[in-house]
């Protein structure tokens, strides 16, 4: 009995290893994966992506496919990882997540990515909100990125702190307080000053996030639609900068370290009362609260309002590099992962907001409350915030300008080391050093 079973197993193992050898020989071929032709697909994502359960589901539905997942802690490191591997010409995963901020650089070498049109993406094109699909299309009409999530911005606020300052705490009243549909940055800063006067505390965590939000809602950001740099004599941008500088000078910035927040403690100890919240930020805040040992009792909530109107910040894409050995299988996986049904699940797992219309609708209908944010009707709020978002052209150095030109300049304001003029001049000088003359 025992012996025969053992023999059977050995025989099976032999067959299996033969199969592996056979498939190894035909490696690189584009044959569809099956139990007889097993392949391994690698996927690299970053931050809170919420794909873990989806991988398992896909593996189950597609026998023969094994997914090797790799998650990088944040978008900046994912960028370095992707760029070095592109430069080396090897090592990229079969499916790579690309962040909106550095999509511009990827577009410059879009020929190194597979045109997903060849794999039937045109059929599902209408799934996405137009601008998201267009962002993933290069000037030659090749589709190199499929949208996963988008970052419509709402305003997070802390009920406890609002109450202490005598502000309303109901999220609808808060939306009204900021001006509802006509909310402006002026009101935002004025309320901040009022808050600061009564409590003596800061209003927002640091200036750079507010600045990103302001720039993202302009029609043209750091680049004009034609791809020209659009900073130095941009009066509209300068006006916003001064507005922010004035607020910061009045002590409204808590001068926190972005994406660090004292390992989340700043979200717990009442350092600041409002926070600009693109949909994915809820996932980030969740992570920070967990790190600092906070929960729903910390009083964070999210209101359906945003100063200056609709704004989108961030969101990601899935791409398949030309170096992939299984482009067809990889494209199939990327398409499946970004399909509405899966986006709904991703959104539930990662607290982000889907980029396909059907998924958005589904989330609104399901109306699953977000417990951490005082049971806020997450889907409804962000669907409403997504209305009127205009896609802004992102140039090749967009994230560089955001992180290494304006962030340092705004730090001068946050730490109170300079005036608005000095900070702006520093930004322009950094821009010349790092982008114009790079």
């Amino acid at each position, binding site marked *: 009995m025992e012996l025969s079973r053992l023999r059977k197993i050995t025989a099976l193992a032999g067959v299996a290893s033969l199969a592996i050898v056979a498939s190894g020989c035909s490696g690189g071929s584009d044959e569809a994966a099956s139990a007889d032709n097993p392949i391994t697909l690698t996927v690299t994502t970053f931050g809170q992506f919420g794909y873990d359960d989806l991988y398992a589901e896909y593996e189950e539905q597609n026998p023969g496919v094994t997914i090797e997942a790799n998650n990088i802690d944040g978008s900046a490191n994912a960028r370095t990882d992707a760029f070095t591997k592109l430069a080396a010409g090897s090592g990229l995963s079969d499916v790579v997540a690309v962040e909106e901020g550095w999509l511009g650089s990827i577009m410059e070498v879009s020929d190194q990515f597979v045109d997903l049109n060849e794999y039937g993406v045109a059929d599902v094109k209408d799934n996405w909100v137009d601008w998201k699909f267009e962002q993933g299309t290069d000037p030659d009409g090749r589709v190199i990125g499929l949208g996963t999530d988008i970052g419509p911005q709402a305003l997070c606020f802390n009920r406890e702190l609002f109450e202490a300052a005598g502000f309303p705490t109901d999220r609808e009243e808060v939306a009204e307080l900021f001006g509802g549909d006509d909310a402006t940055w002026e009101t935002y800063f004025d309320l901040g000053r009022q808050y600061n006067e009564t409590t003596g505390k800061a209003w927002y965590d640091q200036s750079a996030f507010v600045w990103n939000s302001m720039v993202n809602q302009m029609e043209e950001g750091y680049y004009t639609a034609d791809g020209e740099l659009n900073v130095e004599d941009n009066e509209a941008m300068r006006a916003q900068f001064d507005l922010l500088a004035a607020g910061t000078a009045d002590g409204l910035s808590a001068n926190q370290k972005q994406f*660090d927040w004292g390992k989340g403690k700043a979200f717990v100890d009442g350092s600041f009362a409002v926070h600009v919240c693109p949909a994915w930020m809820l996932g980030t805040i969740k992570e920070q609260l967990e790190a600092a040992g906070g929960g729903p009792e910390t009083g964070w909530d999210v209101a359906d309002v945003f100063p200056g109107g609709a704004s989108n910040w961030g969101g990601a894409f899935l791409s398949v590099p030309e170096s992939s050995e299984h482009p067809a299988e990889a494209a199939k996986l990327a398409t499946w992962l970004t399909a509405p049904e899966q986006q709904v699940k991703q959104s539930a797992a990662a607290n982000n907001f889907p980029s396909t219309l059907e998924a958005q609708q589904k989330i609104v209908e399901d109306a699953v409350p977000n417990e951490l944010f005082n049971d806020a009707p997450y889907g409804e709020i962000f669907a409403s915030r997504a209305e009127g978002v205009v896609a802004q052209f992102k140039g090749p150095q967009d994230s560089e300008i955001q992180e*290494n030109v304006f962030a340092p300049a705004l730090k001068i304001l946050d730490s109170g080391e300079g005036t608005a003029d000095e900070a702006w001049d520093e930004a322009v000088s950094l821009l010349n*050093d790092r982008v114009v*003359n790079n």
Partner: protein
Amino acid sequence: MTTTLNRPAAGSPAPAKPTLTFRQRLNVFDMKASPYLYISPFFILFALVGLFPLGYTFFVSLFDWHLLKGQGEFVGLRNFQEVLQDRFFWNSLFNTMSIFLLSTIPQLIVATAIAAVLDQHIRAKTFWRMSILLPYIVTPVAVALIFSNLFGEQYGLINNILESFGIDRILWLNETLPSHIAIATMVNWRWTGYNALILLAAMQSVPRDIYESAAIDGAGTFRRFFSITLPSIRPTMIFVVITATIGGLQIFTEPRLFDPRTYGGTSAQFQTTVLYLYEMAFQRSNFGKASTIAWLLFLIIVLFGLVNYLISRRIATTGDDRGSGRRSRRRRRRSAPPALVLPAVRPQPPAPVAEPAPESTASAGTSQGKDERTTR
């Protein structure tokens, strides 16, 4: 064996050539070529992973070279010109120097002191020696993470303690000098024990009888340390200084992880040159300029190496030079009135007054010193 076999072949005059058999020729070849073959692996490897990248880096530095888009047009030395005019390059050099000095100097002083203490007769010697090496085992990444927490501006332990004493918080990340001190602390924490152990090994090899005779002559602990220990470990000290210099000019991990979201602080206040190189290559995607920085850094390290070499040639030589140094010192001492030496020599009989006393205090190269004195 081989040498004796070979001698006739090697020594034989030219006309004897045809008498060489194949074996003999093989032997000649063996004699001449083998040593080079034996040492060749290092040089082949060095050429592959040292020399070639060095040359290729220079090649890249002459081009516009984008990380993603690859080789661009030839620009000659323009990259060098631009980097040398770049305020961030000079800023990074300043930071490197500052962190290097803040780390190396205290590190060597403390390491020497620790080594001197461990060189004494203390209980549980091995335990103490192992303990000081412990920080070296911890990976720099972990060190950087722990210290970044300690040095946090708003929630860090150090600032919390300072505040509880009513002292203002120090902006460890945002101000230049505090950030340098924080990074130097990480470097020191990691390397002090390692250097102490090397210095300790050197100290152990100093003959004990020298200390004994010095002690008999009345030299106190500090006197023995400065006059015997330090001069004796000089060559090791130079080794430690050189390795610390090379390491100090290449500091990367600590500033990189002190604030992982930036490349050496929001306004590059603790961006070292290697970190600047890294940023240029992988954030700004400019391989040409990154290669240029690499080359400039290489030249700077070579320069430091030369300075080190010159200094070490002056102070680390054995025999004559050192002898002459001693001699002049001894002369100076001898010209001093003997009365000054006497009180120090407590237990000795006062009979042979002046002459032997300075002899034994200087002690190191005794016989040589005697010879010289007689010739004088």
